[in-house]
C-alpha cells in the first residue's frame, strides 16, 4: 500500500468522527429528546442488525466481491431458530446451530463465486431470492412468536444499570474480532491482496478460492448472529424478516471507506460510518422526518461514499500532479 493511501484513510476516519459529532449536535437541535443517555444507547439497537451484516460485507468487499443475500440469510436464521425453539432445544445449543446455518448459506455463496467464478452480484441476487423463499416455505408469513425468554435475552435486554443493550456488547465484540482478523492477521492481508489483484495474489501462493469461501462463510455467520438479535428484538420469526435492509448495509460499508472494487479500506471506518448513519437516522426519526426524506439522505450518503475515492484522487492530482501518480503506480 502506498504512503499516500496510508495517510488518506485515517483522514477519512477523522472526517467521519467530525461528521458524527456534527450530526449529534444537529440532532440535539432537532429534538429535545435526543440528548439523554438512555435514548442514545437505546437508539443503537436500531442499527446493530445491519451493523453485523456490514461487518461481514466489509470482509467480502475487501476481496472486490459483493453479497446482497445477507438480509435473506437473517430470515433463514430466524426461521431456523423458531423451529429449534418449538422443538424445545436450549438456546445455548440453538444459537451456535443458527450461526452455523448462516455460515453454510454464506459458504454456498462463496463456493459459487470462488470455485465456479460466477459474478458475485448475480450469484447473491439469486441466493437472495432463494434463501428468502426457503425462509418463507419453512416459516410462513404468520410466523412464530412463542419464544422462551432465554431466546429473547440477547436482543431485548440491557446491562449496566439497564442502559446498555446486550446486543450492543455483542456488536462491539464482533467488530473488534473482525477488525483484528482484517488488520492484524495474515488472513486479512490475503483478503486485501486478492481485492487489489487476484491474479498477483494467486501467483504469490494465496489460496484465493479458500480465502473467498471463508470470507463469505464469515459474513453468513454474522448474519446468523444478527438473526439471534432479530428474534430477541422483535420476538417474531417469519419469512419476510429483515427484507429491504440491504441499502443501509451497503451504504455503511461504502461510506466507511471500503473501496467497492476491493483491496482498500478499514473496519474502523465501517464502524464509524454505522454510527454516523445511526446518529442521522436517530435524529431525523426523533424529529419525525418522513421516510422518503430519510431514504434520500441515505442514498445521498451512499453516492458520496462511492464518489469519495474519486474525489480524493482528483484533489490529490490537482495538488501534487506527477508525484502522486508515480507513487500510486508503484503502490499498486
Amino acid at each position, binding site marked *: 500500500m502506498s504512503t499516500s493511501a496510508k495517510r488518506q484513510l485515517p483522514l477519512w476516519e477523522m472526517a467521519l468522527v467530525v461528521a458524527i459529532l456534527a450530526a449529534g449536535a444537529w440532532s440535539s437541535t432537532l*429534538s429535545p429528546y435526543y440528548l439523554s443517555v438512555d*435514548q442514545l444507547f437505546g437508539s443503537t439497537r*436500531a442499527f446493530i442488525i445491519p451493523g453485523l451484516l456490514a461487518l461481514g460485507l466489509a470482509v467480502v468487499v475487501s476481496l472486490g466481491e459483493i453479497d446482497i443475500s445477507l438480509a435473506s440469510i437473517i430470515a433463514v436464521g430466524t426461521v431456523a431458530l423458531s423451529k429449534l425453539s418449538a422443538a424445545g432445544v436450549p438456546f445455548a445449543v440453538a444459537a451456535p446451530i443458527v450461526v452455523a446455518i448462516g455460515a453454510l448459506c454464506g459458504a454456498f455463496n462463496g463456493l459459487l463465486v470462488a470455485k465456479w467464478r460466477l459474478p458475485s452480484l448475480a450469484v447473491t441476487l439469486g441466493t437472495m431470492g432463494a434463501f428468502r423463499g426457503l425462509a418463507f416455505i419453512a416459516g410462513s408469513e404468520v410466523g412464530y412468536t412463542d419464544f422462551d425468554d432465554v431466546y429473547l435475552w440477547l436482543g431485548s435486554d440491557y446491562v449496566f444499570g439497564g442502559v446498555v443493550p446486550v446486543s450492543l456488547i455483542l456488536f462491539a465484540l464482533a467488530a473488534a474480532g473482525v477488525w483484528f482478523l482484517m488488520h492484524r492477521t495474515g488472513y486479512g492481508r490475503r483478503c486485501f491482496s486478492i481485492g487489489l489483484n487476484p491474479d498477483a495474489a494467486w501467483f504469490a501462493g494465496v489460496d484465493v478460492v479458500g480465502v473467498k469461501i471463508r470470507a463469505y462463510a464469515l459474513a453468513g455467520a454474522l448474519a446468523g448472529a444478527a438473526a439471534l438479535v432479530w428474534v430477541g428484538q*422483535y*420476538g*417474531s420469526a417469519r419469512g419476510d424478516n*429483515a*427484507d*429491504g435492509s440491504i441499502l443501509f448495509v451497503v451504504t455503511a460499508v461504502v461510506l466507511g471507506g471500503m473501496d467497492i472494487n476491493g483491496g482498500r479500506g478499514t473496519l474502523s471506518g465501517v464502524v464509524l460510518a454505522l454510527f454516523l448513519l445511526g446518529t442521522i437516522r436517530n435524529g431525523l426519526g426523533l424529529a419525525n422526518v418522513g421516510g422518503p426524506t430519510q431514504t434520500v439522505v441515505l442514498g445521498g450518503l451512499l453516492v458520496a461514499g462511492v464518489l469519495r475515492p474519486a474525489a480524493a484522487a482528483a484533489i490529490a492530482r490537482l495538488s501534487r500532479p506527477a508525484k502522486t501518480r508515480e507513487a500510486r503506480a508503484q503502490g499498486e
Partner: protein
Amino acid sequence: MKMKLLATLGAAVLAVGLAAGPALAQQKTSGFKLMMTPKWTGFPYFELTGEGAKAAATELGDTLIYAGADHAEVSLQVETLQNFVTQKPDGIILAAIDGNAVAPVLKQARAKGIVVGTYDADAAVAGRDMFVNQLSYEQAARVMLDAALIDAPEGGEIAFIAASPTSPNHVAHMKIMTELSKTEAKYKVFSVVDTQYAGDDDAKSYDVAVNLMQAHPKLKVIISSSAVSAPAAARAIEATGHVGKVWATGFALPSAIKRYLENGSQKAFAFWDPWELGYVAAYAVHQKLAGKFDPKEGAVLDVPKAGKFKTFKDAEVVYGKPLIFTKETVGKYNF
C-alpha cells in the same frame, strides 16, 4: 420535576378553564399529543387515514404527528415507534406490519401509560388498547359478493386471488365467501372453482388472472381482497379480450379502478372510506384518553360526524362502513 410538571399542567388546565368559562374538569379532556404511523408512508390509502386522523385531532384540540418509513419494513416501524415512545406522547395510533414484532415496543409504551390504538392491521392484543377494524371479516366477505352480484347477477364460477395462504384477513374472507356461496340463497348462484396467490404484487396478480381465465373457460368473476390484485385482474381482463365475459371485483382504491368502471369493462368494486377510518381511530384514542370511552365488549364509541361503533371481543371496535363503487359513484371519491 414531577411536582413542577403537575403545577404546569394545573396552571394550563386552570388557564384553559378560565378562558373557556365552564367548570374545571377533573380529568384532562383535550390537548393530547397523538402520534401515528401507517404501514408505510406515501401510499394514498394511508395518507388519507393520516389526514382523517389529523382532522379529528384538530377538532378535539389535540396535536397529531404522522410519520413513518417509506416502505413496509417492520424493523423501521419498530424504530419509528421507539422514537415515538421517547417523545412521550399521550396516544399512539398505528397500522401494524407484523403484529407480533411491534408488540414489545408497544407493551413498553403502554407500561408508560400511553394509550395505543391500531387500525387497518392489528397488533398482538397485549400490545394495544383497542383495534379499530375497517370491516369485520363477514362484512368484507358479504360486500365483495354483493359487488360480484352487480357484475354477474346470473351467477356462475368465481375464483379468488389472495396475497398468500397465510395472510389472515384474506384467508378468512375466502373461507366466509365460500361458505356463503353454499348456504345463503342470495349467493348460491356462485360456485368457487379456484384460489390463487399473488403476494400483493401487481405483475404477479396480472399473470395469475390470465392463468385463471385460461384454466376456467366458464369463469365469471375474479374476486380479490387485495387492493393490488383486484385492479390488476381488471387490467388482465381488458388486455386479454375478456371484457363482458369475465369480471373482476374485490377491494380496490377508486383511483385505481375508475378507468375500468368508466369505460364499462368493469361494473363494481368495494372499499371503505380511509379518511373516515383514520378519523374514527384518532377519535377513539382521544375518547379513551379523555376517559369517555372504555373499549370493553359491548361498549359503543360515539363519533358524532361518523356514527356509532360497537366494540367486540378483545377491544375490537368495528368501523364497518363498506362502500361499493360503480360507474355512477366512483367519481365522488378522491383516493
